[in-house]
């Protein structure tokens, strides 16, 4: 439906940035402590490629699991809150307050509860990702047009039909926004979870690189995290283009 935005502009920008980083940075004599050239970074990345791949995969699994559970529960909670306002009034403020707890403090508690397991990271990722989805679902369902709802009722529609044929499609564009925020938060949650200690994961490698001041290594991990964050986000954008292209009128 939507006009497909061309990929040329972003790809060209990426090429320019990569080229500048690769060639211009050493040419200008920038201190590698601040910004090592891309060739150094790539070489460093290749030197730890098996750790990197394992860490990437591990962090990806944590992010994906946390996000899947978070978005499902976030959606369900949003639907319940939207249809039972008394519950929203009773519990949403608590959730908002809970969201203001710094993730470091929250993470510490979770690690104490669940130990240094993958479960602890998934729980932190879940905790950060479900809230934006909940809020987006509530707001999306609130925008359902009363007139359209009345039209469906005049055709004798049941509550279930109104939900499936009207409320859900109306809310989906906003829910997609919530999902895109949620997936980014989920990655942040997984990485912070790994800071508390583990043996595999991008967050683990990052903490080690910081500790030993391995500047190129830090950059390797920054790039790896950026790629890891972009993949699920891009998938969501594709889903949106294909299936959720409409906007509220």
């Amino acid at each position, binding site marked *: 439906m939507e006009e497909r935005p061309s990929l040329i502009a972003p790809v060209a920008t990426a090429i320019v940035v990569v080229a500048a980083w690769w060639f211009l940075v050493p040419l200008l004599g920038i201190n590698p402590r601040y910004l090592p050239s891309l060739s150094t970074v790539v070489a460093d990345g290749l030197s730890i490629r098996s750790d990197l791949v394992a860490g990437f995969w591990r962090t990806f699994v944590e992010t994906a699991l946390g996000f899947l559970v978070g978005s499902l529960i976030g959606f369900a909670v949003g639907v319940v809150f939207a249809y039972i306002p008394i519950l929203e009034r009773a519990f949403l403020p608590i959730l908002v307050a809970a969201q203001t707890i710094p993730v470091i403090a929250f993470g510490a508690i979770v690690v104490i509860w669940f130990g240094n397991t993958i479960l602890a990271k998934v729980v932190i990722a879940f905790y950060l990702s479900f809230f934006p989805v909940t809020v987006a679902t509530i707001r999306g369902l609130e925008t359902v047009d009363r007139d359209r709802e*009345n039209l469906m*009722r005049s*055709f004798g529609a049941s509550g279930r039909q109104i939900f499936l*044929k009207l409320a859900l499609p109306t809310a989906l564009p906003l829910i997609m926004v919530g999902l895109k925020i949620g997936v980014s938060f989920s990655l942040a949650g997984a990485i912070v979870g790994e800071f508390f200690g583990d043996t595999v994961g991008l967050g683990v490698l990052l903490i080690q690189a910081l500790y030993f001041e391995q500047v190129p290594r830090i950059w390797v991990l920054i790039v790896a995290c950026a790629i890891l964050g972009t993949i699920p986000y891009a998938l969501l954008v594709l889903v949106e283009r294909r299936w959720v292209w409409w906007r509220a009128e």
Partner: protein
Amino acid sequence: MPAEGLLALRNVWKRFHSGGTETVALHDVDFVIEPGQFVTLIGPSGCGKSTLFNIIAGLEEPDGDGSVLFQGQPQRHRDLLGKVSFMPQKDLLFPWRTVLDNAALALEIEGMPRKAARQKAAALFPEFGLQGFEKHYPRQLSGGMRQRVALMRTFLFERELLLLDEPFGALDALTRSMMQRWLLEIWARHRRTVLFITHDIDEAIFLGDRVIVMSARPGTVRCDERVDLPRPRSGEVMLTPQFLDVKRRLLAIVEEESRKTFSASA
């Protein structure tokens, strides 16, 4: 058919309460609609026409003092949901549905399988001048086409009584008169009972067997005029003395009521 016609309103009142103030939208509305009639309803803006339709569609409950009878049966709140085909003032198409699926909405709600519903809707496309637009989305259509899709959706919900709330209100004069003639043709072929809201006196007389004029708010029936112009009607009919005679009489009343609306709000 019972003595009460297809639809009878008896002393219907509707008061809205919001923020401590009471708005009387309708007061003592009383009329009977016979099966097969095309009745047009005209009245100043805000006089309660849409409210009246909401009541007849079962979406809004009239106050306790009056009653609504459908096929002779008194109707309580929500009884009428699913019994009349209702076309609201706005087209209210669903942007994520194709034109075909928009038209088939009511059929789907009635439980018809999607494929059968689409087939049935598709059969009406030529008659509604929408052939070739089945796969389009609403935003790709002109205002007149959107209105026809909404009308088709209402038609496909096959009920004895059709409620059309200003279906042509947003159209330009030329499209509007085309649509009026076209609606009469469709009506002649399908013979359903129609209650049609409009702001336009010519439209009211041209289409109706009967014109009901509503008073300024609080709305009530101010006058109920038979229109005995022969059918089928063409545009020429608007130039006949008989038409002009009815128009002159209605115009005086409508203008008087509209003036009341203005001086009340001033």
